[in-house]
C-alpha cells in the first residue's frame, strides 16, 4: 500500500477544488441556511456532480459507475469538505448506494442504482434511533411477515439527507432483543410508501437530517438487502466506508479552518504586532498543524486499506475517525479562540466549521468510541 496520490487522483482533486470554488463557496452554505432551504442542498448541483462522474465513483461500470474506490472518492470529498459542501454523498453513495450495490440482489440494484448514479435519486439510510447512539445493533424498529412481504413499524432519528429523499434503506428487527446483532433486516423503501412520515430535524450544522416514522409500512419480499437476519453485517460494511468518506470531508474542513485561522494570525495586529508573532499562539498553531498532518496520513491509509480489503482495514478506519473527530473539533475551537470576538459572530465563517466539526465528530462514532473499537479489534 502506497500512501501517495496518483497523478489521476491529483487531477481529480484539482477538478473538485475548482468546482467547489466556482459553485459552492462557503457563502452558499450560509445562504442555504438563511433561506431555510428545505433540502439544505441542491438537486441541480447534485445532478452536475453526477454528470462529472463523482456520484458513480464507487459503483460498477455495469450500472454506469466508474468502478473506482474510496481513495478516489476521498479526494473529491476532501476538496468539497473545504467549503462544507452539503450534497448527499454519505447517504446516497456510501451508505444506501453501497449497501444496495454490494449486498442487494438484481431487482433492488436495477431499481435504484442507475437512478442514483445519474443523480436522479437521493437515498437515505435510516438506521439510527434515538437510543442507539453509535451502536449499529441497537434496533427497536420491528418488522413482521405480511403476505409475501413485510410490515415495518418504528421510528428512526438523525437520518442523514432523509428530508426530501426519493427512498431510503431502513433497518428493522425480525427477531431477537433490541441490541442483538442477529435478526436485523434491511429494506429499500420508497419515500412515498403509505405509512411513511419524514419530519425534518434542525441540527447545529443545518445539514439535511430527519426523523423517519414508519407506521405499518408494507414492503415486498424482494425489497430486502442482504441475507435474512444479517442486516447488521451490511451496516457494518457500509458504515465503515461512509466513515472514511466523512473523514475525508473532515480533513478538508479542518484544513480550511486552519488556513483561515493562520491568515488571521498574520493579519490581525495587537500591541503593535501581528498576533501570530506571539509564541503562545505560534506553538498552538504548530501543534494543530502537526495534528492535521497526522490526520492526512491516517485518512489516506484508511481509504487505501478498505479498497484493498486489508486485514487491518477496520482498525485503520477507527484510527482515521478518532483522529479526525479530535482534530476537527480542535481546529474549530482553536480557530474561534484565535479569531477572538469576531470568531463568536455569525458574520464570520469560522463558526460554521466549529459547528460542522461537532456534528461530524458524533456521526458514525466519536473518538472515544473508535478508540474502544480499536482496542476491541486489537484483542484488549
Amino acid at each position, binding site marked *: 500500500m*502506497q*500512501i*501517495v496520490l496518483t497523478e489521476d487522483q491529483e487531477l481529480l482533486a484539482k477538478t473538485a477544488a475548482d468546482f467547489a470554488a466556482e459553485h459552492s463557496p462557503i457563502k452558499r452554505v450560509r445562504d442555504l441556511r438563511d433561506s431555510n432551504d428545505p433540502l439544505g442542498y441542491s438537486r441541480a448541483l447534485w445532478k452536475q456532480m453526477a454528470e462529472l462522474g463523482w456520484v458513480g465513483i464507487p459503483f460498477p461500470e455495469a450500472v454506469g459507475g466508474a468502478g473506482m474506490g474510496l481513495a478516489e472518492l476521498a479526494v473529491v470529498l476532501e476538496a468539497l469538505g473545504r467549503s462544507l459542501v452539503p450534497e448527499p454523498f454519505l447517504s446516497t453513495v456510501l451508505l444506501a448506494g453501497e449497501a444496495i450495490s454490494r449486498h442487494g440482489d438484481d431487482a433492488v440494484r436495477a431499481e435504484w442504482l442507475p437512478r442514483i448514479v445519474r443523480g436522479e435519486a437521493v437515498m437515505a439510510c435510516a438506521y439510527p434511533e434515538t437510543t442507539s447512539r453509535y451502536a449499529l445493533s441497537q434496533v427497536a424498529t420491528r418488522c413482521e411477515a405480511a403476505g409475501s412481504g413485510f410490515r415495518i413499524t418504528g421510528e428512526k432519528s438523525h437520518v442523514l439527507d432523509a428530508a426530501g429523499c426519493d427512498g431510503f434503506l431502513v433497518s428493522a428487527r425480525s427477531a431477537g432483543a433490541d441490541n442483538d446483532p442477529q435478526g436485523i433486516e434491511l429494506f429499500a423503501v420508497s419515500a412515498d410508501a403509505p405509512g411513511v412520515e419524514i419530519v425534518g430535524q434542525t441540527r447545529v450544522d443545518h445539514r439535511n437530517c430527519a426523523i423517519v416514522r414508519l407506521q405499518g409500512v408494507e414492503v415486498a419480499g424482494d425489497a430486502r438487502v442482504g441475507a435474512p437476519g444479517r442486516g447488521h453485517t451490511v451496516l457494518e460494511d457500509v458504515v465503515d466506508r461512509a466513515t472514511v468518506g466523512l473523514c475525508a470531508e473532515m480533513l478538508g474542513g479542518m484544513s480550511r479552518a486552519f488556513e483561515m485561522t*493562520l491568515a488571521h*494570525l*498574520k493579519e490581525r495586529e495587537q500591541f503593535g*504586532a*501581528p498576533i*501570530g*508573532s506571539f*509564541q503562545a499562539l*505560534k*506553538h498552538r*498553531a*504548530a*501543534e494543530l*498543524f*502537526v495534528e492535521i*498532518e*497526522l*490526520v*492526512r*496520513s*491516517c485518512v*489516506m*491509509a484508511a481509504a487505501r486499506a478498505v479498497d484493498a480489503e486489508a486485514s487491518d482495514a477496520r482498525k*485503520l478506519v*477507527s*484510527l482515521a475517525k*478518532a*483522529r479526525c473527530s479530535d482534530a476537527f473539533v480542535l481546529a474549530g475551537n482553536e480557530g474561534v479562540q484565535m479569531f477572538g470576538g469576531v470568531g463568536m459572530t455569525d458574520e464570520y465563517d469560522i463558526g460554521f466549521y466549529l459547528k460542522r466539526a461537532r456534528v461530524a465528530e458524533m456521526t458514525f462514532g466519536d473518538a*472515544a468510541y473508535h*478508540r*474502544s473499537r*480499536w*482496542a*476491541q479489534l*486489537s*484483542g*484488549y
Partner: protein
Amino acid sequence: MSNLDSFREETRQWLEQNAPPAFLGRGGGGELEGPWGGRRWKFSSDAEKQWLDVMGERGWTAPTWPSEYGGGGLSPAEAKVLAQLLRELKLPRPLIGFGLTMIGPTLLQFGNEEQKRLHLPRIVRGEIRWCQGYSEPNAGSDLASLQARGVVDGDHMTVSGTKVWTSYADECDWIFALVRTKPEATKKQDGISFVLIDMEDPGVSVKPIKLISGSSPFCETHFTDVKVPLANVVNGLHNGWTVAKALLGHERSMIADAFGGVVSSDRARGGGLQDMARRYLGGGDGPLEDAVTRDAIAQVEMDTRAFTLTVQRTRDAAKAGHKPGPESSIFKLYGTELNKRRYELQIKIAGPQSLGWEGPGYEDAELQRTRDWLRSRGNSIEGGTSEIQLNVIAKRVLGLPD
C-alpha cells in the same frame, strides 16, 4: 530475473554465509542498539566483532555511501532490499552511531576530497567513533551564541573553551565542534567554523556527568589551547553555521527514526502495553477491565500508528518523485513526545513495581524500564527541544512572523 531480483538473491546468500550463525534470527533492534565502534569499543562477543568486520569490509554499514569512500555504493532501491533482508533474516545492526548518522552524511555534502577520503572509510569500518561538540553552558537552544574560540594562526587554529552535554565524549575518538573564529562578525551566526578535532590531541579533556537515570552517557568537554590544522575545517573558515544546521537536520531525522525503531523493538520483546496491562492489572482475556487504562493504551497505540503512517507517507511521496513536504518537520517533535508518553503510561501501568531504583523486590526488566523512563525525558531536549521544534514549524512551515 530483474537486476534487483538477482541482487536480492546474491545478497541473501552472502548474508547467510557471512553472518555469524549466532546472529541469524537474533532480531534487529532500533537505531540506538548495536555496537558504536571506535578504538575504545569493547565487543560483547566475537560474533559482534566478526559481524562488524564483514559488513564494514563490504561497505554495508553505510550501504548508500559511494564505494570510493568505503561505502556500499548501493542505489536506494538496492539499499532497501538489503534493509529488508536484514529484517527478514532478523540480523542485528552491525554498527550504529553519530559517524553513520550525523557527521558522515554531512561530510558527504560539505567535506573536501581529502576529508572524505580520510574520515568516511574509518566510520564505515567502525574504527573511529565520533561525538558532537555543539552545546555550551551558555549556548543551548540559542546555539549561535556559542563562545568556544578558535584563533587562527598560519595553517592551524588554537581552540579553547568548554562544551557540555557531549554524549559519549569519554568513549569517542574524534569530535566535530563549532567554534567562533570571527568574533567581530556582526551576525553571531557568521563567525562560526565547523572543525574536526582528534580527542587525543593535547589539551582535550573530558569529565563525565551523571544523568537522572543514573548512567553517565554525556560529558563536559574542555579545550585548552588545542592546536587544530586548518585542513580540519569543513566548508571553509567562518562558514560553519550552514554545516551545523545541515547536521542538525540529519540528527533530528535520526532521532525521529530511532523512535519508530524503539516502538517496534519494544513490541518484538513482548513489552507491548497490552501485555503489560494484563500482567499488572489482571483480569481475564476479554476487554481490559480498567477502562481508563484501556483508553490510554489505545490512544498511545493509535498515535504511534498515525506517526509511522506519516513517516511512510513521506517516504512514499519521495519515491514518487515529490519534493519533501512540510510533514517531515514534525517527526522530531512528535516522535519524542510520543516516546515520552509511552514510557509514562508503562510506568503508570506497572504501578509501585515501577518505583525500584535497584536491589531486591524488582525484576531486571522493571528496573531497566524505570531507568529508560527517566532517560526518555531527555528525548525532547536533546537535538533541539520540543519548544524549539515548535518555533521552527511556526516560522519555516507556517510562515508566522517573528
